């Protein structure tokens, strides 16, 4: 294998490697007919990324003939070759990647200014093929945006945030931080951003849906996309199906495939072909139509009584406080059994901000007390490992 990258493309290559380092610890390298593929996957196999550089990206691209060559190496070692990204543009004229089959070494040679030559001989391991199976085109929903938009959006979430939830309707998309049900409710801070469809280059929502996935991996892609200025395409379906983030131009195709939290009791799928399935999560907000009243009861009581574990049932009041959350309406429409329900009117009393506990009910975090739960929620609770003891059904009028 013998490839040469020149000029600004060296920085693109370096950025790709840094971006891959956000996914996994190992870099899988595979020179293919259609280009050089650099891939990485995380340890739990819930995130996969692939950068495919077409032969046109290189000023020279020769691949080993005969048997396919695949290798993997510690990504930190490759990152060490491309240190100080900022000075790369100014100092590196070209980068030569060569495979020395006899010595099992991959050589990166950087030709720099002033005649300085940096040669890195990295050892590698033969590896199996790393390929995620996904089909972007079959996804029901697709959004495309300038990277700047997404970067500005995720900026609002703390760097420590693990997961983010994205909900779409016909006209809008919401980004929210995902609060674990195990998190202390009183300390949880919920952040939500709403973007309208006209902020996107392309906005095609087939089915209203809400998915939750790991933010860190999205950030990994955004770091790369922002530096290239290329638009990011997001393909997704219902929860549990993988989310695909894609950046393409004429010489480069990037795909990040991330698992999303699934809605039902799906456990992680340990498929050999690496299809992405999520771990069993708390379903965001499932309840049957006729149990809406119980919810409202629960919510009303908790509001009036303050944070209490055992609210007494009272007469339902459909016109309850619910200031924000058009997203709530969406959640209600999406049910485990697929039933549609009439949207209950909610927004009435806008004096007070919604009770946090209430919000968390709708955002899928399960309340600590089982007496507040309705049938449906309990059913959904069954899939949760942590709250498996909350099996008692509250009998509410």
């Amino acid at each position, binding site marked *: 294998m013998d490839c040469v990258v020149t000029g600004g493309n060296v920085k693109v290559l370096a950025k790709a490697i840094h971006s891959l380092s956000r996914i996994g610890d190992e870099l899988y390298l595979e020179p293919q007919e259609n280009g050089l593929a650099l891939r990485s996957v995380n340890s739990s196999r819930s995130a996969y990324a692939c950068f495919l550089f077409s032969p046109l990206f290189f000023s020279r691209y020769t691949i080993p003939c005969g048997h396919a060559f695949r290798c993997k190496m510690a990504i930190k070692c490759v990152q060490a070759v491309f240190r*100080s990204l900022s000075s790369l543009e100014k100092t590196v004229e070209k980068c030569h990647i060569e495979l020395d089959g006899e010595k099992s070494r991959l050589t990166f040679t950087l030709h720099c200014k002033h*005649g300085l030559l940096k040669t890195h*001989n990295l050892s590698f391991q033969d590896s199996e093929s790393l390929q995620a199976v996904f089909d972007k085109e079959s996804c029901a929903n697709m959004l495309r945006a300038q990277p700047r938009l997404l970067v500005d959006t995720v900026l609002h979430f703390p760097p420590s945030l693990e997961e983010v939830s994205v909900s779409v309707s016909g006209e809008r998309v919401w980004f929210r931080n995902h609060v674990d049900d195990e998190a202390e409710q009183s300390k949880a801070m919920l952040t939500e951003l709403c973007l309208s469809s006209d902020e996107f280059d392309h906005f095609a929502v087939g089915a209203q849906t809400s998915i939750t996935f790991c933010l860190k991996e999205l950030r990994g892609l955004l770091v790369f996309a922002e530096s290239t200025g290329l638009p990011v395409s997001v393909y997704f379906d219902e929860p549990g199906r993988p989310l695909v983030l894609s950046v393409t131009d004429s010489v480069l195709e990037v795909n990040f495939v991330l698992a999303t939290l699934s809605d039902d009791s799906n456990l992680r799928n340990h498929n050999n072909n690496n299809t992405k399935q999520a771990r069993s999560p708390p379903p965001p907000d499932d309840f049957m139509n006729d149990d809406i009243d119980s919810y409202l009861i629960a919510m009303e009581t908790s509001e009036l009584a303050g944070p209490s574990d055992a609210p007494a049932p009272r007469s339902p009041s459909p016109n309850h406080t619910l200031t924000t959350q058009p997203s709530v309406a969406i959640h209600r429409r999406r049910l485990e059994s697929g039933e549609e329900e009439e949207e209950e009117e909610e927004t009435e009393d806008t004096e007070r901000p919604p009770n946090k506990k209430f919000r968390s009910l709708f955002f899928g975090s399960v309340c600590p007390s089982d007496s507040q739960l309705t049938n449906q929620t309990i059913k959904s609770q069954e899939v949760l490992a942590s709250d498996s003891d909350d099996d008692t059904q509250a009998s509410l009028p």
Partner: protein
Amino acid sequence: MPLSTQSQTGDDNYVLVASLDNVRNLSNILKAITFKDHAIFNATPNGLKVTVEDSKCLQANAFIQAEIFQEFTIREDSVGFQVNLTVLLDCLTIFGGSTVPGVATALRMCYNGYGYPLTLFLEECGVVTVCKINTQEPDEPIDFEFCSTNVTNKVILQSESLKEAFSELDMTSEVLQITMSPSQPYFRLSTFGNSGNAHYDYPKDSDMMELFQCTKTQSNRYKMSLLKPSTKALALSCKVSVRTDGRGFLSLQYLVRNDDGQICFVEYYCCPDEEVEEE
């Protein structure tokens, strides 16, 4: 820690008095060789030489000529003592290390001779601090017996490019190998780390190469831990000369310009690593 006492009167007893309008002209250079606590000071009418050594394999010297000082009076041919360099630097930078344009800390360094402490008077904006640091009997610095007649290979490089290489050196490598040769690769720095090996090659016709005099191909390894401190001197310098002699001993000489543009020198001597080289 600095000792603050009433100032001494009279210069009569001092064997060495050295004054600087800007203490940074001394402290900056000393920072470049502070990898060990103790330093051997040797003053002659030519100026001040400060030596720091490590495990008998590495020696760093800083030379501050008499001309750099605003006052440099020495009563004997050679005055020597040993002090704790860390403490000395703490005193020299007692008014804070930051530079404010127009404000400089002045230094007056006085030494009474054998057995007496080193007295430092530091003044900034009318505030005077007096420090007295205990001195010890100076150890004899190692003589690496490195003389120019035995030098086999010598290059002078602009520090800019070496700084980049040194900052990127693979620290998982125990040794730094320096290869100098009249033919390819001319001047090469190599590391052998966990991920593989890396080479930094400087061609002899590079515009970073100010002088290239290599007579024979030599490849020597030096412990990375010993050479790492030299990066501080490299950072301060504008030029560096790299020389090896027949035994493989390494001499690195750094040309440092101080705040006032005056030239000082820092040099490092290092023994080659005893392990047998392969290839």
